[in-house]
């Protein structure tokens, strides 16, 4: 039983959780984004990128987002209303590839240092978005997920996700997967199992069958 749970847990924490969570419309029912699609194709690109991210294709998501902001690391903050969306996509793509995102010269992961730098950028970016959005569980869940990647921030990640979970406000399956992993590492077996149960409840199924949580992790450098 324990082994089975552990297997599921490990599966949940690896690179990509090929599930989609957030609902997103390509064509709005009334107003909103669909108008902007016509006005600015970059909105469409970002929407596609979000869909890709939700469908477990972080690399594809990042590439689309980087088409809109090729120099995403150096773009002046506040220069575009689309920037926060693009930054979130790329940052989560990095987190969900465990830092192994390579995209031109902007992001490479040929060694452990670069991989760490990627994760540090992603964490810093999601932290800033979380601060900007203030009291936003979705942004905080993203941050918690990112914090779970690096050993030195895992304790903070556990605090962030725990606080959200107490109010039933973790907004993604990835967030619950990270929480399950962090609780497990902290010796909280019951809490880990509870988070895993929530993960399973909100992880998107494909064709009625729940998608496998993840493939095995390739590299344990940053795992707990």
């Amino acid at each position, binding site marked *: 039983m324990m082994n089975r749970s552990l297997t599921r847990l490990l599966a949940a924490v690896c690179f990509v959780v090929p599930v989609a969570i957030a*609902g997103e419309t390509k064509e709005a029912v009334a107003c909103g984004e669909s108008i902007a699609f016509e006005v600015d194709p970059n909105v469409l690109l970002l929407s596609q990128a979000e869909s890709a991210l939700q469908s477990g294709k972080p690399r594809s998501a990042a590439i689309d987002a980087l088409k809109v902001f090729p120099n995403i690391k150096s773009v002046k903050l506040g220069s575009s209303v689309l920037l926060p969306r693009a930054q979130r996509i790329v940052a989560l793509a990095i987190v969900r590839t465990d830092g192994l995102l390579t995209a031109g010269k902007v992001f490479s992961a040929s060694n452990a240092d670069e991989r760490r730098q990627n994760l540090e950028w992603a964490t810093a970016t999601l932290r800033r978005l979380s601060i900007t959005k203030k009291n936003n569980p979705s942004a905080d869940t993203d941050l918690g997920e990112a914090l779970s990647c690096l050993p030195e921030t895992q304790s903070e990640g556990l605090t962030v996700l725990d606080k959200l979970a107490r109010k039933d406000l973790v907004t993604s399956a990835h967030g619950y997967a990270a929480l399950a992993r962090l609780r497990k590492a902290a010796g909280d077996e019951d809490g880990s199992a509870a988070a895993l149960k929530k993960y399973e409840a909100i992880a998107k199924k494909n064709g009625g069958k729940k998608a496998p949580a993840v493939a095995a992790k390739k590299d344990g450098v940053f795992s707990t």
Partner: protein
Amino acid sequence: MTCRVGEPVLIANPHPAKPIRLSGVLILALCTLGGMGACGDAKVDSGATSTSASGVSSTATPAVSAVNSQSPDPKRGAALLTKFECWRCHEGTTKASTIPVAAPVEPTPEAMVKADNQHCFDCHRRIIAGSYKAPKPSTTERWKKNVEALVHVPSLTGAHRRFKRSWIEGFLAKPHDLRPRLSPTMPKLPLSPTELRDLAAFLVPEEKPSSPPTITKAAVAEGRALFENKGCPSCHFMTGTGSLKGNPAKKADEKGLSDAQRLAPDLRFARDRMAFETIVTWVRKPQSIKEDTAMPETPMSEEEAQKIATFIIGEELSPIEPQKIPTRLPVLTRQVSYEELKNKLFNKICWHCHSDADYAIGDGGPGNTGGFGFVPRGLNLAAYDGILSGSTDDKGELRSIFEPMPDGTPRLVAALLARWKEEAGGEDTNIRGMPLGMPALSPEDVQLVETWVAQGHSPD
């Protein structure tokens, strides 16, 4: 707003970033500040044979007034027009009163673009006219069907010439369905008693004393005959008085109604809304009171107008029949998907007010970033993770929208049920009914939501 992004380096972008027009969040919380449409009337002095109008309107006023000892301030009321964003739904805000008021929207280009996208009805009108940009023609056609009954709202022009201050105060305190053929109704805004008084004082800075005639049954009967012969019932209902000759009794969702028919108020409330003398003038020369009214001018003498006004204020009315609150349906046994709810409700209705600023490229709507005088609640119903993010309570603390209310009903479902109660003339003091100011969801739609929540509100 200019959106400049970095130069392409390694990844080609076929669509270089260009200025982004605020697409905005269309705010569907539709207001129908009652009383702006057509006829009205005066309250009859005691001793006359007339009855009070409704039991809905004038009864709400004394309680509100009783708590106020400070004099109402019309100038403060003018500022409230902006605070409560009356312009999001109503035209004529700058012509509503004799009290000078700055334009509710600052005339800066940015503000004008924002306002343009935040005016619910203007947006709907442009969709109907085909001038609102949509991704493809089929989308426009679909939108047209959605907003067909959502393009009319009474303007506030000349409110000071038309209404009784007491009626405005009471109506804003407890809005009710005033116009039978209009789908939206005035929502209950978070107005304090002082704000209610100030806003009413702004809209009606001065009231002339009224001297309604002595009412007899014969005079009322004569007025009724004239009312029918002049064709008034072709637009107006007067509930509580039995069937009127020539009244087509069309409902709100029927097609082919004229602007005048859509906006025509139920005349049972007219005696609470207008003074006798105002009704007489209104019946004869409506545009002399409100230049943009849809009410047509019907040829008649002053004497005929007085007779009709006598009928309007003096007709004996049966009490308003309490509306039945729909029966809550049991949770379904079949699986209800998020996709189903998203297409049918969340991204069709809810997101007009509960969106995400980053996605709407404007603001998140009154139910998210605040508006209509409501504090920001941070609720985004336009995306699954937004729904899971919950909202903030009065203390600014986050809470899940699935958390149970005291009776065990999930908060999200409770808001939908509260709207049923509001439409039936009641109120749930624990939660505001949703959708705000819009027709309540059907029992079947509420059942879908309740089932999805009960099944674990998964993204599938």
